[in-house]
């Protein structure tokens, strides 16, 4: 039987801006099994990024239960959450979020600094191999400003993969890319998923959603039936 990797039970999240309170997530339930490729679609403001923040342990729900890899994580402290993010979750962002002064290789190695504090030759080898697999062997010493959008996103993917995560979280990963590069990047996601990596992606591009095994629509803080 395939294990549940992410289980959300009745998650709520409220934001306050000045005197106005927005309830962004209104009792949301979700189960994602290992090896799944889930795309969450929804209009802007529907709560999909908040959902991704909570799944990625970047934010805490106001109420509800969240089991990640069998562990209840909604009440963990910052240090414990950092540990899980570092070792079990890989992030790919719309804006790439590479460290501007670091080279492609250094960006890929960054999560390892928070794992053991040290970077071994093995780590380097592994990072180089990942970059090579993503077609970046010629660009390892390039700074983000010297890379194209597609290249930057591939560096970000290599960085997300460096710690062998259980879950890859992607927030509009192709939002800043042209259609050909989008195709390339999505093929990478597909390939990773086929090798067993669980992927949860947020997008509003129906073309991108076609790569998913499952699509869920979110509206006003709850999933709606397709």
């Amino acid at each position: 039987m395939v294990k549940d990797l992410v289980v959300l039970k009745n998650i709520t999240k409220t934001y306050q801006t000045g005197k106005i309170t927005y309830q962004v997530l209104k009792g949301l339930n979700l189960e994602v099994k290992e090896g799944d490729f889930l795309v969450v679609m929804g209009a802007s403001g529907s709560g999909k990024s908040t959902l991704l923040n909570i799944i990625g342990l970047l934010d805490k729900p106001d109420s509800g239960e969240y089991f990640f890899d069998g562990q209840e994580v909604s009440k963990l402290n910052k240090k414990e959450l950092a540990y899980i993010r570092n070792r079990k979750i890989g992030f790919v962002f719309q804006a790439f979020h590479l460290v501007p002064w670091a080279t492609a290789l250094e960006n890929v190695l960054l999560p390892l600094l928070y794992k053991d504090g040290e970077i071994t030759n093995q780590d380097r080898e592994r990072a180089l191999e990942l970059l090579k697999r993503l077609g970046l062997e010629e660009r390892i010493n390039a700074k983000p400003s010297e890379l194209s959008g597609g290249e930057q996103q591939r560096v970000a993917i290599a960085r997300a993969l460096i710690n062998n995560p259980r879950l890859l979280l992607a927030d509009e990963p192709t939002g800043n890319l042209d259609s050909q590069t989008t195709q390339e990047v999505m093929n990478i996601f597909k390939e990773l998923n086929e090798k067993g990596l669980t992927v949860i992606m947020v997008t509003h591009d129906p073309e991108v959603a076609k790569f998913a095994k499952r699509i869920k629509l979110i509206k006003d803080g709850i999933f709606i039936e397709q």
Partner: protein
Amino acid sequence: MIPSYYTLREITKELISNKVNLFFMLLSLIISLTALNTIYSLGASAKKQILDALANVQFGKDAMLIIAGGGRIIGLTTTRRDTLKLEDVKELERLDFIKLASPMSRETLEVSYKDIAEKMRVEGVFPNFTIANNWYPILGRFINEKDLKTFAKVCIIGSDIPKKFNASPSELIGKKVKIGGDFFEIIGILEPKASFGHYRRDERILLPFTTAQRRVFNKDYIDAVKLLFKEGTDIKFAERKIREILRKRHKLFGPEPDDFRLITPEMAISVFTKALKTINLFLLVIGLISLIISGVIIMNLMYSNIEEKAPVIALRIALGATPQNIITHYLIMSLIIALISGLMGWILSILLMQIISLFTPLKPLFSWITFLISFGFATVTSILFSLLPAIRATQIEPSLLLKSL
């Protein structure tokens, strides 16, 4: 925790990524450290010079000066000053810790040579003056026992006097000068000794003690005695013993004040350095204030750095950096700033001292203490004032990486 090479490289690159910020952080710290170090060095140098000068006149730790007349160390006497006698010195010489006692008397008299006349300090001294003060003639000879016995009308002159008489030192040997109405033959010229402030030590004339007392000053009391102690003498004990003997001989009892002053090198130094200390303390306070201002500047620049780098910090947190990782990151950054500015401040203060020494009598003094001051203060200031910004950095929400709601 020792940061890894990658961590250090990361931090260095981050620092260099905002050169203007880095420049002002370093500048503010370097300026105040240079000031602080220079102030300290100036004080230390001035003190050392006084100590050297005192050692140069045999006023090291095994010495004492007895001056006739009671009162404060420097200033007007408040008692009779005609009570210190040669017999007192004889009695003191019997103490087993006394190595040497050199009494002297002095007056300020008119001295003339050819058509030049000037008021000068004239002293009656014994042959042991040379040892007691580590002061020897560079030309001619010093006073000897025979001069004392025969009340010889001879004198030794200080090294600045030939200039006053418009004559070369060698040409003056054998010539006669008129001191207080009598003519004295110049038999030697003293080697030059540096002056203490406005006290011109090289403008004095020495006569044989007996000649001075009988023929010139016409007095039976002495003005001062220089004592040298045997090595290892307990100065406090010596002081007590000497005071006891002199008070007894001068028939001073109970609350009656001393009619003499015992001056130890420590007291002399404290007098010379007192004004210096006050000024120094004042400057040090200013230095410390400027250091605090630097600290505040660093704090502000750190805050702005953290605001600017918020997305990167959020990213680090998202990638698994713990609050401790983030704080360490920024404290290492402030340590790097401290080390660079500590080194620069230290080097600059050394250069500044060299420049100051060109225009003042103060000599540059190399001291590892300034090195420690520089790095110590740099580290404390930099880290202390970076702590709050570093803590602020840990509170950045990683969720800001995902833009819309």
